[in-house]
């Protein structure tokens, strides 16, 4: 079996290659089972009754009409919740259902759920439930909550969190001062795979199995178990096929409702939201108002930043306190500055609840600081590139939280590499009119168009913060010649399943890697959010594979008489460096059983003190964006021509996947810049559909020219940084700055609407 001459087999799909995704072909061909495709024998359909009022007292709920309808199996209300009546990621303040005597606090809040033999029957049953409301005046202005003049709309009060940052010498004044008041609209994650869950009760009714499209199986299980008053081990969660997440699946939506219906009916129940219900069913990006003032010396060096940030968290807490902290701790952006006074508020209103979305509070802060950098450049009389290079943060800098930047911080390199990307060709008179502002509407000729260039640079924390140990777990089994990896990491479309295979192939020298079902039969992986799974679950998979490899080497050393300390993986062989003896991995693993489970923990972090000081974040990533935008100043229509970007990625593990994350993030940031907004008036969503909530199409998407900055991050298990969030953060202000340059207006709000430009 061993030899000294056998050639080294070529491995495919290892780290650093554009390995193809295990789910790629089925997704492209339409064969992939998303959670809304799930089916079980004897399954009932579930549906949810929601409040039409943003704020009202529930005086009575009469469900008898629903039961009178043929085909209705069961109805659940707050009275049917056996355990905890509320849920929530940080604070459990959100009712499973609004109870009689309590209030509904946002338009769309669940009142009851029904299970029936057909979706149509469900709709008739919902219409037959009579709810009597005492309609109350909604609280919709966050400033009223801060001033304390608003009615208290929840027993926990109207303030989710208030946090200051007081740093360094706050008395210092800059000879140059620029300020502005900025506003960011409410963005939706707008994933394409709508919320869906299938719950199958165990026979005997002591537990259940659920298939859910979620970002964090174990956290869901905990909250479901609490509400159902079941031990966690009685609930098995399996990941249903997930069609995108972007933060919107971090909170509970239909999980508890589906489980309650299934347990009460004693039959499998599936709830699947439609697009409109999805707008009510999940949390959105916080709308925010940010005042910011930069003090600089005559050369433009920032000496102090003052800011006040107000995040509207809507009716329930969700992750508002953490979003706020992310916002205020990123006030300075990727720039050196130790002196700051920041005042941050996250408040409760009767607007739709807001929580996690790609960029998590940093998007809002970045829009403000990058708008400010443009003003600062103008005030100093230098270019947007010069002002940013002058202030670029470096490893070792002390930040306004007192934390020392100990990540690789190639900010200046990101800016320079972006600046070196060639500009697109100027707009030609013969241009295809569909490719200029107005697109297929043929509203303009090239002579109507002005072109602008704008910059945005950002810093984003990676992983969870403020003392939270968001560890991840993975298991590597080698049995009968087969390598199997198991984890509970939510694959939401980002490609972790592909990455896990790449890691296992690289560490173990095998081609075939089987992925076990993603479920709660292994330890938690934490959430697929905060740009953390490549680092955290990648670290766990790598650790599990290394643990298995160590046992394999022990076995090989004994069986094939190799020197334990000298053996290594060489291609698809195990080789003794001293003797050059080798055995193929496939032969070596053919008769052994190895089973290793490992956890990966990131270094611990701390809470902020009352002055906002503390080592609260784990690590950081950086990116620069330069936007070239064509604007029709008369009609206010725009076309983003090109985004040039250089991103600090640590190390590229899969070039094609990295490119996909970057292009997708840029499209999402473009959406926030010029079109994506949930319009809320008097507490009600006015555009809950893709007819009126506009996402960029291919004719809106720019050419993306990208450079990966590969400086391996020593703290990261794979040398790589998370790359999911940074692409969508500074592209928004880059586009806004380009439009500002083209039309000479301040445009302090995103999305920038046509009438903001031309009226």
């Amino acid at each position, binding site marked *: 079996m061993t030899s000294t001459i056998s050639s080294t087999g070529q491995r495919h799909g290892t780290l650093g290659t554009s390995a193809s995704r295990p789910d790629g072909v089925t997704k492209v061909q339409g064969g992939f089972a998303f959670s809304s495709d799930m089916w079980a024998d004897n399954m009932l359909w579930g549906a949810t009754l929601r409040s039409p009022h943003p704020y009202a007292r529930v005086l009575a709920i009469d469900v008898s009409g629903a039961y009178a309808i043929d085909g209705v199996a069961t109805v659940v209300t707050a009275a049917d919740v056996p355990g905890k009546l509320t849920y929530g990621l940080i604070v459990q303040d959100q009712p499973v259902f609004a109870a009689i005597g309590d209030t509904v606090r946002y338009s769309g809040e669940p009142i009851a759920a029904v299970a029936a033999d057909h979706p149509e029957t469900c709709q008739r049953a919902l219409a037959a439930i009579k709810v009597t409301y005492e309609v109350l005046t909604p609280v919709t202005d966050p400033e009223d909550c801060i001033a304390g003049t608003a009615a208290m709309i929840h027993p926990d009060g109207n303030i989710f969190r208030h946090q200051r940052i007081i740093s360094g010498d706050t008395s210092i004044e800059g000879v140059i001062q620029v300020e502005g008041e900025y506003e960011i609209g409410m963005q939706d994650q707008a994933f394409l795979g709508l919320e869906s869950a299938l719950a199958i009760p165990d026979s005997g009714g002591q537990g259940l199995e659920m298939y859910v499209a979620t970002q964090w199986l174990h956290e869901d299980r905990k909250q479901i178990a609490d509400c159902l008053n079941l031990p966690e081990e009685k609930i098995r969660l399996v990941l249903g096929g997930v069609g995108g997440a972007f933060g919107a699946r971090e909170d509970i939506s239909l999980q508890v409702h589906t489980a309650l219906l299934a347990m009460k009916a004693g039959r499998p129940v599936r709830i699947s939201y439609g697009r409109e219900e999805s707008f009510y069913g999940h949390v959105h990006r916080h709308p925010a108002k940010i005042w910011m003032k930069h003090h600089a010396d005559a050369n433009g060096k920032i000496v102090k930043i003052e800011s006040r940030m107000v995040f509207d968290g809507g009716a329930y807490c969700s992750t508002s306190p953490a979003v706020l902290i992310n916002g205020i701790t990123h006030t300075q952006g990727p720039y050196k500055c130790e002196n700051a006074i920041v005042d941050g508020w996250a408040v409760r209103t009767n607007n739709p609840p807001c929580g996690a979305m790609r960029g998590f509070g940093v998007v809002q802060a970045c829009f403000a600081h990058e708008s400010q950098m443009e003003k600062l450049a103008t005030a100093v009389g230098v270019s947007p590139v010069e002002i940013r290079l002058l202030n670029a943060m470096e490893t070792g800098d002390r930040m306004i939280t007192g934390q020392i930047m100990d990540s690789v911080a190639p900010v200046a390199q990101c800016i320079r590499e972006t600046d070196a990307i060639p500009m697109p060709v100027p707009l030609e008179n013969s241009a295809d009119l569909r490719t200029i502002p107005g*697109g297929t509407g*043929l509203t303009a000729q090239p002579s*109507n168009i002005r072109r602008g260039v704008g910059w945005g640079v950002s810093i984003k924390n990676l992983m969870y913060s403020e003392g939270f140990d968001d560890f991840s777990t993975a298991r590597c089994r080698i049995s009968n010649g087969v390598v199997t990896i198991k984890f509970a990491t939510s694959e939401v479309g980002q490609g972790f399943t592909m990455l896990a295979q790449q890691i296992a192939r690289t560490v173990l020298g095998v081609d075939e890697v089987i992925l076990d079902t993603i479920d709660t039969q292994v330890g938690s992986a934490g959430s697929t959010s905060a740009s953390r799974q490549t680092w955290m679950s990648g670290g766990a998979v790598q650790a599990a594979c290394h643990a298995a490899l160590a046992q394999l080497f022990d076995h090989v050393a004994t069986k094939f008489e190799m020197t334990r300390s000298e053996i290594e993986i060489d291609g698809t062989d195990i080789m003794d460096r001293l003797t050059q003896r080798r055995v193929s991995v496939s032969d070596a693993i053919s008769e052994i059983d190895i089973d290793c489970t490992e956890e990966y923990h990131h270094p611990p972090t701390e809470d902020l003190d009352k002055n906002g000081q503390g080592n609260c974040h784990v690590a950081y990533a950086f990116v620069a964006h330069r936007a070239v935008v064509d604007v029709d100043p008369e009609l206010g229509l725009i076309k983003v021509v090109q985004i040039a970007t250089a991103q600090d990625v640590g190390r590229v593990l899969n070039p094609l996947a990295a490119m996909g994350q970057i292009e997708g993030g840029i499209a999402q940031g473009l959406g926030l810049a010029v*079109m994506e907004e949930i319009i809320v008036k008097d507490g009600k969503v006015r555009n809950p559909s893709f007819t009126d909530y506009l996402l960029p199409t291919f004719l809106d998407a720019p050419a993306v020219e990208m450079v990966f900055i590969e400086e391996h991050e020593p703290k990261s298990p794979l040398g790589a940084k998370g790359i999911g969030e940074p692409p969508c953060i500074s592209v928004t202000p880059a586009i806004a700055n380009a439009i500002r340059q083209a039309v000479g207006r301040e445009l302090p709000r995103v999305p920038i609407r046509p*009438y903001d430009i031309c009226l």
Partner: protein
Amino acid sequence: MPVFIPRNVDELVDVFQNHPSAKLLAGGTDFMVEVNLHGRKPDTMISLRKVKELTEWSVRTSQTRITIGAGVPFAEMEFGEIARLVPALAQAARTVGSPQIRAAGTLGGNLGTCSPAGDSLPVLAALNATIHVIGPEGSRDIDFVDFMVGVKKNCLQTSEFVHSVSMPIVDGWQGYAKVGTRNAMVISTASACLVRDSDEGFVSIALGSVGPTIIRAHNAEAWLMKTTSLRAGAQLEASVAQEFGRRVSLESRPIDDHRSTADYRRHAIGVLAQRLLTRSFS
């Protein structure tokens, strides 16, 4: 729910007369949204799929008029002969939804729904199109301006349906432009079709999404004809185009809604009018 599938126009007339509450289904791009999103529950459906006559179009031998069946999908108007003869209709058709929607949605559907944002409707208004309708009492021809009577309201009587639309083949420039908040696949916030008949020396302009119906800017049209020559070879002064835009804007009657503001629509429709008129001279 009964579904009828007539095989020709005569059968369609019969079945619709016997089931006046039935809904007609062609592409379904408006109607199925009503069913799926807004819970609309039809009691009877009539599928138009097998009525071949509705999906045909023809040009009069004199080459002066084109008649397009109600069931012709937008995709068929984007390219080829229809696009050559009525380019503004092709431009409007291209702005309808996505390729899938354009393959399914029909001209008759736009007329049936009769939304002020219906993309093809300003073209029909600017060209003085005639709507050929058939019902139990026989057939009649209705001018487009009389056909559309309000927001999502037309003058079809019980059991009447749109058979086809006929419009002149104009010697001169025609064009369509539509403002939306993204560069494709968007509902219009303002749209306009301008037709310049170089033979007659006349310009007509019709406005979409800036009033309860499609609006013909008759006053601006009359002012323009009085002010400057519109015949082939004439020149246009920039100040005239600008004033034309201003006058067109005055004839719009837009509202504020979640898609835009009345002020923006009023402004945008003036810009479109000015630009379309300028284009018609270049």
